[in-house]
């Protein structure tokens, strides 16, 4: 058994390792190292805990057994899960952390003495408050994550569930939790403790159901943050620095991350987090959900990242490039890509733009060499071997409906097979159709990323992010 001082130092070290882990994960170069730091931090925290408890009875064997059991399950899941199921996996994992926090809180509530928090019925006031906050937040995290998981998995419908008075209900429940904590402190009756946990489970559900599927990543990050706060709360109860540092770290970084993600998706943070609050905003998000539901939308950084990691890119310009006068920015973007040894070519559809040769005029103005510019027939087979199609302000000329639907007004027009690329980036301002007025189903495809912005603005932003 090691002294409290030494374990405190080691907890600090593990906290620092976690900081480094998060730092590492914020830039691609250091990301793997970051993960390693995280693992090290966790190992240290666990070892130190063993050593500081110093109780080497047979219980240790059970602890190890359960640890290994959990580890085996976790590893199995991690290896088996398909990459596409990442978001729901993270949501699922979250629920576990939440539940674990609840269990730890219960345990502390049951046997306060062993944690030095007083005796049952005589638990220190501060500890009682801390542990009920921990338990409550943990419970919210648990049930909220479960809902998020179900929505992402498709088991539950992704569309937001809203009903009248939702916000009032939430408010009511929120207040009731506070009241219950108050009574718990006053009476020390375990009864109240259980009710708090129960109600918190319900809160988690209520908080997440009004949020649409598209906003789930933000929600997950937010739940992440909750689980951090829960850990910190319990850290105070157990007077454990590791839990406090890490909990605060995870709590604030998760909150910030969800804020950043909202900004990236051009969504209002409040709107997303408060889900059902305010009649208009619910309306709003509903409408948005209906419209945006199936499209993946990204920002300049995503686009830059995708293209930087591609080995070949085909640019497909259309009328929107002309409207935005984005040709110069485009040329610059391509220059940057080429400097990264990426093969870049231009695919010009015969009727791109609004006059014959429209694209040629603009590309020539931007000094794009002629030998990088290909007409449809010469390049259409290349899409299948290309990593990224960068469709800038083009729409009709990529619309596969021209190949498939004889009733479509553009049926029979040859189109650029951009969808055969690994990823397709569409730069346009909205989901509205092009000249022919036909919806483009590519926007909703799995391998499409929409970049909603003025073409020039977006291209310039991408240039910036290509540095």
């Amino acid at each position, binding site marked *: 058994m090691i002294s409290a001082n030494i374990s405190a130092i080691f907890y600090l070290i593990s906290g620092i390792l976690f900081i480094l882990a998060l730092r590492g994960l914020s830039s691609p170069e250091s990301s793997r190292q970051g993960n390693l730091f995280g693992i090290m931090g966790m190992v240290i925290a666990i070892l130190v805990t063993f050593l500081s408890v110093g109780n080497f009875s047979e219980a240790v064997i059970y602890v190890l057994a359960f640890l290994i059991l959990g580890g085996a399950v976790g590893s199995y899941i991690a290896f088996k899960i398909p990459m596409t199921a990442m978001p729901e996996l993270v949501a699922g994992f979250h629920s576990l952390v939440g539940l674990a926090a609840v269990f730890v809180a219960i345990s502390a509530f049951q046997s306060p003495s062993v944690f030095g928090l007083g005796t049952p019925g005589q638990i220190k006031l501060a500890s009682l408050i801390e542990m009920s906050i921990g338990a409550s937040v943990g419970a919210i995290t648990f049930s909220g994550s479960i809902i998020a998981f179900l929505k992402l998995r498709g088991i539950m419908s992704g569309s937001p569930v809203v009903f009248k008075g939702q916000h009032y209900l939430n408010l009511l429940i929120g207040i009731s939790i506070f009241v219950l904590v108050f009574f718990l402190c006053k009476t020390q009756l375990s009864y109240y403790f259980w009710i708090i946990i129960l109600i918190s489970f319900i809160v988690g559900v209520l908080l997440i159901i009004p949020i649409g599927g598209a906003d789930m990543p933000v929600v997950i990050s937010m739940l992440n943050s909750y689980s951090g706060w829960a850990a910190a709360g319990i850290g105070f109860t157990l007077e454990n620095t590791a839990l406090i540092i890490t909990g605060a770290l995870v709590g604030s970084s998760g909150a910030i991350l969800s804020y950043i993600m909202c900004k990236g998706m051009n969504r209002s943070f409040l709107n997303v987090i408060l889900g059902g609050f305010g009649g208009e905003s619910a309306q709003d998000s509903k409408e948005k959900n209906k419209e945006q539901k199936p499209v993946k939308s990204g920002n300049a950084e995503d686009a830059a990242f995708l293209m930087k990691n591609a080995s070949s890119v085909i640019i497909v310009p259309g*009328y929107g490039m*002309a*409207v935005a*006068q984005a040709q110069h920015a485009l040329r610059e973007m391509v220059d940057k890509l080429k400097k990264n040894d990426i093969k870049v070519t231009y695919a010009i559809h*015969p*009727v791109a*733009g*609004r*006059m*014959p*040769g*429209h694209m040629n*005029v*603009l590309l*020539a*103005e931007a000094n794009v060499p002629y030998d990088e510019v290909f007409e449809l027939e010469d390049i259409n087979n290349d899409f299948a071997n290309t990593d990224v199609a960068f469709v800038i302000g083009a729409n*009709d000329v990529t619309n596969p409906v*021209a190949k498939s639907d004889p009733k479509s*007004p*553009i*049926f*029979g*027009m040859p189109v650029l097979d951009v969808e055969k690329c690994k990823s397709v980036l569409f730069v346009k301002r909205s989901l509205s159709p092009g000249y*022919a007025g036909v919806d483009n189903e590519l926007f909703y495809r799995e391998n499409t990323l929409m970049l909603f912005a003025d073409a020039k603005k977006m291209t310039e932003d991408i240039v910036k992010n290509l540095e």
Partner: protein
Amino acid sequence: MIVGSTKEIAPEKRVSITPDTTKSFKDLGLRVLLQKGYGEELGFKSSEYESNGAEFVNNNIDVVQKSNLICKVNLPVKEELEAFKEKSNLIVGNIKKETANLSNKNYNIFSLNLLPRITRAQSMDILSSQANLAGYRAVIDSIYEYQKAVPMMMTAAGTVPAAKVLIIGAGVAGLQAIATAKRLGAIVSATDVRSAAKEQVESLGGKFLSVEGSENLETKTGYAKEVTEEYKKKQAKMMEAAVEKNDIIICTALIPGKPAPRIINENMIAKMKPGSILFDLAASHGGNAAYSEVDKTIEKDGVKIIGVDNIMNKLPLTASNLFAKNIFSFVRNLYSREKKEFSVNLEDEIIKNTLIKNK
């Protein structure tokens, strides 16, 4: 099935079948029959045609009599028309419906200028392909006639100001004219009655002159409507100021089935700077400008007013290449590969609209 073509009558310089499309016809399973010396004026050698699979006969009548389908830029001469096989087909770039009853033989006549402006028909659209070149060439010709340099040059001997170019009508020809003038460094502005034109003009770096308080005069098919009297007045007011300021004016405004709108009147021309150029691409449809006469260059108060009927003769090679591709695309649509014959499917909008005489 045999596709044939005979020489055009001067001054027409274009042809409707090029060595390139000859090959395409062959690939489709069609034979190509041409009159001796076809395409020679353009520098196409008979050997080029032949190596791509064409056959030559000496006489134009022979061609017509042997072919199942004749492609022409302009309406064939009378004797050719009379010699047509029964149930054969004739595809012409441009005829008016009224003139279609020239021969009472029983064959199909298609006129490509009647193509619907639908997406699928784009590859056959001779109006677009030729108007595009016309827009380009109108600028080249205007600049050739212009006695000053067009781009701005700041030099040790003083500054050459950039020429100001005004394009009237921002359809296919107008847009290409904008692009070409812009490329050369002119200050370009343009005007049109369709409100979508504004964005299109700006997408080429031109400035759009709108008529104040005007509504959008676009028909459902994308063409312009005739304008109201009130609009005309407003437009004239705007034009007066604009015309005076510009050095080169290129007119491309048309209204399908109607005479071209008269946009520039005598007064405006009087106010133009001496040495200015007024190029009226609409001359053969009645002209957008006063004084303009088909195939003549008129000088009025130092302003050169140029009216050309067939500006395509100024770049017949490119024009023929595109024209022939249009024709080929049309034939490909008409020809049924399974039945190995030309089938006039009247459910096809393209065929229905272009057919002016049915067997």
